[in-house]
């Protein structure tokens, strides 16, 4: 009998010794979101509760970070006009805490409060999202990343796993903007056709204008990418081969063996931890393709920058080809071009600038060995410069910042 009491007490102490992490979220349906080209649309989401006034939701909702072994308590207040839940995608919470209407806590409109409790058992990448009419509420933006770090919060991909020096979360999703614009008249839900393809809620040029979205790493860094996909598309990442991309976890579980590849495709709901090894300095891009789940053809595209805005790259990077040198790139306005063309050949080059959507922005005609293009009036972002002349053709990427 004495041993039973001791066992029960020991069990209780173990339960209560688990660190407790509590988050207070408010579900809200009044967000305004900025997309590329200063387009705006409506979003719904979750915001951290603030007794002095909870802010409007952002896309995605706040990233929640805990450590492996933590006991997690999420309090959700609903002041919006519709019912909501929080589904902890991949956390394998028990039925009551799974966030599925009719099976778990459902948080009624206006004044209700819900509680979700679970233990974060495995380090890795997860997400949370509303599971009420998911076809509407997820599309409207009710989702965010949930990160379980290794025990103690150390910089290991998983407890006892490889270490990293920096980490970035890239959460892919999509939207059919007209649905967000006019969410009272959307549907039928099977006709969803995404036309905005997002990473961390933003797209295209925005990913370069926000320096926090650009990977900043020096030689010797090992960078952890936490890749999460909640779109309706299969998202294919293309990593620069120089960075030896290696995959260590999938859906919050250790991959054994690890997998090395320059490409990774995430279907809706999937997550992967990827390490990039910067054995030397590197700047460039990770390409992100969005593929239809019908024919797997590309329907959207983004790029994640790597070291685009480091001090060295701003002033010193020179694009050098067999035909010309272009500098500085990124530029604040003036782009210098030195053509390396046979001196006897007359220079007559058309310089056409497109934005990343392919829209023509500016055309210039160049006649001299050394030329300057003035892009001061352009909004910041990434552009494609096509240089075309007789026996001469170059396509280059220009960054304005």
């Amino acid at each position, binding site marked *: 009998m004495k041993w039973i009491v001791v066992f029960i007490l020991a069990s209780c102490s173990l339960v209560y010794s688990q660190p407790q992490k509590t988050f207070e979220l408010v579900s809200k349906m009044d967000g305004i979101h900025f997309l590329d080209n200063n387009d705006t649309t409506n979003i719904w989401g979750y915001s951290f509760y603030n007794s002095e006034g909870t802010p409007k939701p952002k896309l995605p909702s706040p990233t929640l970070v805990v450590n492996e072994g933590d006991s997690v308590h999420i309090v959700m207040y609903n002041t919006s006009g519709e019912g909501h839940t929080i589904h902890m995608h991949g956390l394998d919470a028990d039925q009551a805490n799974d966030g599925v209407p009719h099976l778990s806590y459902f948080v009624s409109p206006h004044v209700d409060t819900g509680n979700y409790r679970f233990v974060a058992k495995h380090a890795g990448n997860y997400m949370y999202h509303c599971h009420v009419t998911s076809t509407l509420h997820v599309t409207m933006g009710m989702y965010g990343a949930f990160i379980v770090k290794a025990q103690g919060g150390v910089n290991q991909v998983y407890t006892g796993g490889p270490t990293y020096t920096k980490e970035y979360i890239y959460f892919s999703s999509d939207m059919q903007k007209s649905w967000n614009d006019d969410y009272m008249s959307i549907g039928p839900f*099977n006709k969803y056709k995404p036309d905005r393809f997002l990473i961390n809620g933003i797209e295209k040029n925005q990913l370069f204008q926000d320096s926090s979205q650009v990977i900043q790493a020096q030689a010797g860094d090992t960078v952890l990418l936490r890749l999460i996909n909640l779109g309706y598309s299969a998202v294919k990442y293309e990593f620069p081969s120089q960075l030896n991309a290696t995959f260590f976890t999938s*859906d919050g579980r250790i991959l054994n063996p690890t997998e090395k590849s320059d490409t990774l495709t995430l279907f809706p709901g999937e997550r992967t931890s990827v390490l990039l090894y910067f054995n030397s300095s590197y700047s460039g891009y990770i390409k992100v393709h969005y593929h239809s*789940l019908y024919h797997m053809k590309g329907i959207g595209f983004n790029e994640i920058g790597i070291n685009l805005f480091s001090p060295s790259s701003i002033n010193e990077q020179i694009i050098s080809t067999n035909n010309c040198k272009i500098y500085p790139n990124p530029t604040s306005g003036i782009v210098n071009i030195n053509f390396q063309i046979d001196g006897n050949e007359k220079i007559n080059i058309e310089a056409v600038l497109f934005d990343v959507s392919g829209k023509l922005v500016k055309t210039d005609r160049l006649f001299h060995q050394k030329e300057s293009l003035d892009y001061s009036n352009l909004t910041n972002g990434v552009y494609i410069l096509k240089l075309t002349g007789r026996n001469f053709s170059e396509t280059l990427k220009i960054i304005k910042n």
Partner: protein
Amino acid sequence: MKAKFIFIFLLQASLGFSGVVSDTIYINSGFLVTATDSFYVLSYNDSPTFNQSNYVINIDKDDTLLLSIKNNHSQKHNFNIDGISGIDTSAILFGSFKTISISGLQPNAYIFYDNYVYNSYLGLKSVLVVKDYNYKHYVLNVREFMTDWNDKLFNSVTPTSSYLPNCFTVNGKSYPDTKTDSLSKIVGNVGDTIIVYMVNSGLYHHAMHTHGYHILILKSNKEPHKIGRSKDSIALYTDEVLMTRVVPDQPGMYPIHDHNLISVTNGGNYPGGMITMFHIMP
């Protein structure tokens, strides 16, 4: 309709008993009914009576399958097994039947189908399971339809519109009917070992998500690099067969659904379509 006869083959004495399994499948036509739609389909059934859920053939490792295919449909059909060569794939005319013998199959699940145009799309794609275990197993055969195409094919008109599916099924049924379907609702107890075959017989790729549990991928006919992964969100490509194992560690009712959310609808309304359930008891 299945009769199993056990013969002892002296040459295989060292392997113990080998069985000859005789089975018959019928190619039937009828109407698949969901909460919002009713449309023309074809189906493999174990009797001459139409059933909108395709029949799954089950045999044990080392069994020889004597399979008769009876065509009850007004058009000709043929019979193929994905990854298996040497099968007589000649036409089976209306009212006639063909018997084939298959042996030596490795433990796995194999898609069998009719490759005449649109017949697989209309439903003639099911699974032969060859098992070497004694656990309970389920087959989740997911497939989507564009009912406008089915209506046209019923009237012998070739569909020309873009494929925009509006009906999503698991074993020929859509949620909420799947909640009570013994083929699709996975029932067990905590600690059970349950084998779940996920099969995509549709034209779309799907992304199956399990609530409550991670499941271990044991086999894949399309992406063997996935074998050994413990997943809660699983890419399921067209014509892919995944053999997975789940050992539930908690009781409860948890959804299994496609996370390409167009697929959790019936006629464009949520919830519906490709959703089924775990029902795990203590």
